[in-house]
């Protein structure tokens, strides 16, 4: 039986106390963190301690008892597989949730179920009904009042379109802001994870598991997984000195369905290195660029001037909001490098090329040639380097007379005389003594080996002359050039250097890889960030052919805010186009032929819908309120006021203010200097010379054919008549309609030169009424020239909006179902994770009780041992006292 340490048991009890105390602390920590987000429950790793298990002199009778419990560490309980599934599902939830939120916001703008009067027919529908009511009134009685009424209704309708468009644009801008914020958050998370990796690594190197930091890192990874689909990998890496530490790598989760695209698994975080996400910036394109015009500029600078230098141009987001990943940097800003080295040992010839000389040791030989017949006798002596050797005592007589043995004896002792040489016997000639220098290098004559042997007269210790086998050579180290770095076309570098290791020389060729900025493909990420991108960019049937060919082959099926914006634009454009077309034409007679001449007052003609232009208030003319003839002269002057001087003055609307004024001045206009004064003078001149501004509408005029009727009712600006590029945002009642120059044409037919009236047969207004419910084809290419779709919808204005709402409703519903499915999965997974990693009060209470009891028991053990030892120390060996 082996020795038992008297106080061993105390250690056992103490370790028990420590272990229980640790347990209590961990339990306490778990309970404290029961509500901490992302906290993973911890437990102690406890082992049974046993010392001396492999004693060298262990007796077979010796029974080792363990030395108690040892806490080797504290661990957390996680299921990595659940983490992977949770994070995959989390990106699904992020995607669908964000998409659903976006669609919900579009719905709040466009979805009109239950809105408006008549029990919820919708605002636009209600306004179209209002327009049809006004048109019906106009059809019954096409006068100025009813035209004004219709115009007010049309203005309200245009304003409704403007409001929708404005709200959608605001939504798009807000979504863009959210997108920028999301990118900033993602970058923050990536930085956090990278920095946490470093902290965890530092802790790990110091022997700490850094559980709390891991919890935080997991929480950050969970957050990241909502924004993008990621793949998390753990591996071990060499931290130097043979120490292995855990390394975390996060890549994109291979979301792109296109197998040729590899950017969808780009690295986001690689241990201590991390990247940042940004939106690709491109030079701002000049919308007016004409490739055939050498003076046209391709880009615009920040001050809106043109340039052809893309670097000089203002940098704006790429239209598809393509994302880029930056290079991988550590927290100190050092870029990631991947180095692989190849070692090639250098040959002597290689080394000679670098001037290397190998040192040689000098060697000499002396032939031991004792004289023939000469014999040693016992007691004879001889000296080597002053030391005396006696025959029979230091060497047996027989050996002394044996020349080979004597040579060997001499070789053994000549070393003392020549400390720089090793003396040996030539294997091929045992009588030949070899002197080899201990160091390499050339030997000077003074340093050659010396025999220093006293010879006897008989020649028993005779040596031949020293033969120089090698005079020695000094060594020279190779002179290697500085490392040479070559930049390769693929962005890598090759560094060539030379090293010496373990006496050998090597040529080292190192390939250095750098990380590059990665431009992601359209579908490389999945998650809320991608959903926001799609909300910002997807235009469905309005997507261009180029986008489908080069960005996303499924672009035509995806619908974000631009789709709804363009749908509304197409609707507004179609609406304006149809009504503008309906309101333009020439006057026809009862047989459908063009009327060649018509006479009537301005008011009558205007009520018929005849187009009468007022002088424009631009630099081409000098004021509103005066009607002009087709040739630009002011109308109604000679017919109604024969004495008028205006015809003599021949003022035309095309005259500039100065020109018109000069003409008027020559015919008696008042003197004026400034532009404003000249305009006032001109107006006064026109009034003074017959044109009564108040009664101008009563003036009778004769117009010759073709007599243009109507004019644009809707334009792209309230202060003009430009009908090009009408969108929902700019749809306006035209300037001419708003000032009354253009009226709705009730009918284009005039019966028998106006002799026969047909006051209640206003066919054109009826056409306009029918137009509200007319089925029209909506072609996306009418709005986006190279759009992929050719037929968005066929139906009435209202049906078109209803269709957009139905499409949105269906998308919404699909996203809702997908969100519910993925969210339910996420919740299940979260519950499962909670089941593994969460803190349970019952569990912890049990642990608390268990550790408390263990603590008490260990303390009790100590008392028991104390009592036992007390017995041994204080109450043993006093028998008989």
């Amino acid at each position, binding site marked *: 039986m082996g020795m038992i340490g008297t106080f061993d048991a105390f250690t056992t009890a103490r370790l028990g106390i420590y272990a229980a105390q640790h347990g209590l602390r961990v339990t306490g920590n778990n309970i404290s963190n*029961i*509500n901490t987000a992302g906290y993973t429950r911890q437990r102690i790793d406890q082992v049974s301690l046993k010392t001396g298990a492999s004693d060298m002199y262990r007796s077979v009778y010796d029974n080792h008892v363990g030395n108690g419990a040892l806490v080797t560490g504290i661990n957390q309980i996680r299921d990595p597989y659940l983490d992977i599934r949770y994070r995959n599902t989390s990106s699904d939830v992020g995607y669908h949730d964000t998409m659903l939120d976006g*669609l*919900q916001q579009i*719905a709040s703008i466009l*979805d009109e*179920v*239950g809105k408006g009067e008549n029990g*919820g*027919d*919708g605002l636009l*529908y209600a306004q179209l*009904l209002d327009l*049809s009511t006004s048109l019906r009134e106009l059809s*019954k*009685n096409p006068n100025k009042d009813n035209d004004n009424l219709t115009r007010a209704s049309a203005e309200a309708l245009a304003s409704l379109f403007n409001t929708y468009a404005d709200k959608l644009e605001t939504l798009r801008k807000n979504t863009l802001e959210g997108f920028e914020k999301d990118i900033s958050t993602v970058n923050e998370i990536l930085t956090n994870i990278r920095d946490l990796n470093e902290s965890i690594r530092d802790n790990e190197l110091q022997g700490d598991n850094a559980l709390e930091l891991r919890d935080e890192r997991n929480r950050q990874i969970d957050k990241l997984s909502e924004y993008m689909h990621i793949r998390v990998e753990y591996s071990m890496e060499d931290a130097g000195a043979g120490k292995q530490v855990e390394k975390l790598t996060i890549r994109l989760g291979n979301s792109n369905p296109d197998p040729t695209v590899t950017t969808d698994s780009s690295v986001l975080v690689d241990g201590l290195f991390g990247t940042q996400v940004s939106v690709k910036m491109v030079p701002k394109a000049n919308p007016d660029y004409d490739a055939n015009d050498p003076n046209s500029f391709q880009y615009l600078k920040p001050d809106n001037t043109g340039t052809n230098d893309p670097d000089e141009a203002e940098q704006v987001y790429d239209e598809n909001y393509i994302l880029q990943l930056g290079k991988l940097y550590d927290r100190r800003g050092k870029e990631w490098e991947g180095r692989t080295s190849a070692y090639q040992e250098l040959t002597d010839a290689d080394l000679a090329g670098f001037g290397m000389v190998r040192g040689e040791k000098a060697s000499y030989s002396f032939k031991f040639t004792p004289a023939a017949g000469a014999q040693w006798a016992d007691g004879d002596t001889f000296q080597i380097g002053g030391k005396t050797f006696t025959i029979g005592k230091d060497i047996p007589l027989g050996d002394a007379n044996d020349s080979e043995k004597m040579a060997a004896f001499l070789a053994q002792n000549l070393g003392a005389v020549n400390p720089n040489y090793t003396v040996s016997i030539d294997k091929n000639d045992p009588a030949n003594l070899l002197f080899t220098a201990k160091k390499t290098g050339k030997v000077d004559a003074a340093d050659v080996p010396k025999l220093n042997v006293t010879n006897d007269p008989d020649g028993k210790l005779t040596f031949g002359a020293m033969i120089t086998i090698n005079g020695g050579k000094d060594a020279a180290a190779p002179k290697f050039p500085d490392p040479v770095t070559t930049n390769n076309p693929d962005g890598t570098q090759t560094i060539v250097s030379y090293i010496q290791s373990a006496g050998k020389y090597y040529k080292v060729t190192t390939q250095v890889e750098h990380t590059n900025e990665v431009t992601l493909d359209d579908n490389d990420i999945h998650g809320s960030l991608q959903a926001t991108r799609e909300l910002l960019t997807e235009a469905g049937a309005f997507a261009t052919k180029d986008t489908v060919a080069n960005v996303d082959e499924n672009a035509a099926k995806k619908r974000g805010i631009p789709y709804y914006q363009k749908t509304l634009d197409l609707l507004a454009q179609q609406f304006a186009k149809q009504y503008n077309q309906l309101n333009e034409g020439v006057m026809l007679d*009862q047989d459908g032929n063009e009327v060649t001449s018509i006479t009537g007052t301005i008011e009558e003609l205007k009520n018929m819908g005849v187009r009468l232009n007022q002088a424009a208030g631009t630099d081409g003319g000098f004021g509103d309120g005066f009607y002009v003839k087709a040739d630009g002269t002011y109308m109604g002057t000679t017919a109604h006021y024969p004495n008028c001087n205006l015809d003599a003055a021949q003022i035309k609307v095309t005259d500039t203010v100065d020109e018109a004024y000069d003409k008027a001045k020559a015919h008696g206009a008042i003197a004026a200097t400034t532009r404003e004064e000249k305009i006032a003078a001109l107006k006064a001149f026109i009034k003074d010379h017959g044109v009564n501004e108040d009664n101008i509408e009563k003036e009778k005029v004769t117009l010759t054919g073709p007599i243009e009727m109507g004019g644009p009712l809707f334009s792209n600006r309230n202060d003009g008549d430009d009908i090009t590029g009408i969108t929902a945002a700019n749809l306006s009642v035209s300037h001419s309609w708003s000032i009354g120059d253009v009226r709705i044409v009730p009918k284009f037919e005039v*019966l*028998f030169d106006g*002799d*026969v*009236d*047909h*006051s*209640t*047969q206003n066919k054109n207004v009826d*056409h306009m009424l*029918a137009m509200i*419910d*007319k089925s029209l084809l909506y072609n996306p290419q009418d709005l986006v020239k190279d759009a992929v779709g050719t037929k968005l919808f066929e139906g*009435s204005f*209202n*049906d078109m909006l*209803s*269709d957009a*709402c*139905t499409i*949105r*409703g*269906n998308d*919404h*519903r699909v996203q*809702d179902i997908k969100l519910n499915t993925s969210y339910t999965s996420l*919740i299940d997974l*979260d*519950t*499962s994770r*909670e*089941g*593994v990693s*969460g*803190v*349970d*009060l*019952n*569990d912890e*209470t*049990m642990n608390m*009780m268990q550790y408390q009891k263990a603590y008490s028991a260990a303390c009790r053990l100590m008392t028991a041992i104390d009592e036992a030892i007390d017995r041994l120390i204080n109450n043993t060996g006093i028998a008989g006292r």
Partner: protein
Amino acid sequence: MIRATTGGVLKSYRRNLMNSFIARNKAQDTVLTQRNFNSYAEDPAAAARAFKLRKARMTVESQYSVCTDTHKKFQTGWTSLEGISKLIDTENAEPMKTLAGTSLTMLNDPTADAREQLTKALDQISQTIIQNLNQKYGENFIFSGADGHNVPFEIKDDKLYYRGVPVDAAVPKIFADGNGASVKLNANGQVDPAGDHFLLSTGLKTISESAYEQAVKNYQNDPTGSPPPDVLRDPPTPPDTIGDPHLFTDKDGNKYYIEKSGAQSMTQDEIDAATKDAEKLKYLMNEKQFVDIGLGFQENENGQLIESSAYNAALNGLTFIGYGLDADGDPKNIYSLVQKMKEIGARVKDGENWTKADYDEFNGLVKKLEKASSEFKTEFTNMSAGTQKLENNVELLEDNFYNLQEQYSDIEDVDMADAITSFVWAQYCYNAALKVGNSILSESLMDYLK
């Protein structure tokens, strides 16, 4: 699940409580809004269907309004025509009450002492007919075709105008001789190539060369007998004072004279004006005003209305009282006929006998009036049928409207019993969830430690 942790159970509870609350809220919304869905997303198919039904209902509502309006217009018009119908009733021989009665009394009046009164009565009745045709429905004139804002019939100088066009307008028939050449008359009514009046073929009376010569001979033999008819003559060659009678030859070579009494002529301008007026009348008679009363109102690809898909709501007064001239050059219009009768009546004094010519002419006009009255009745019957059709259509549209209303109500409106039951159940579930929460939070092993 291997472990159910406190945190996990609480999370799960929170989530389920939220679901329960959402369900309760949704049920509450359904009860409060009384709608099955409040956005397209809730039920896109139902929302789209409801939208279509609402639209259809609106269309039917508009058609109903138009149809009712048209029906009322027709009804009012019918009443006016009913009044006219009584005035031109050919069965009613009562003098002073009807045109037929008055004119027949005038014709057959043995004493001829009330002829003036009767003539005035004829005029009054014809005036009343026109007044009836100038009836308005709402703001528009009923019988004005497509010109509801303007009075359709106007009487100027005893002539009737419809929308500014004389109702007796007809394309003048220019007389052509055997060679097909027109014949011109001068200001004195003589056949003269240099004249500016064209001889019209309407109402011409001819007399063969032999008959005329025989009449001349007879008159020469017996100056007390009837003189030969006054015929168109050539301009006199001095010392002639009246010129020779102009002998005409037809295409078969027969020679004849034209009596001056029936010869009418017009200048080129008058012909043009009359032709234009006739064209106007023709246009107006074909004028239609279509309205959508639910017959499938549709335009063809050229934007022209497909007439069978709409209803012609134009009521043209001339359809009922006639227009233009007949082959004899007499008006076909009732008012004009009466005016002509009135002229004849004015020629015959009270107590005097009819001349044969006047009697024949008057009698002829009475017959023409009868014919015009008969045509009026035909058109009146047609119009009555149209009114009935509109009435039937109004009922049909009404049914249609309620049917559509019911259909979309079925889709949109909730069954309140169902909605309230769902809400009560959701409330119950929510209350139960709250109760469960109370138990979850209170119980753990920790509570049993001393």
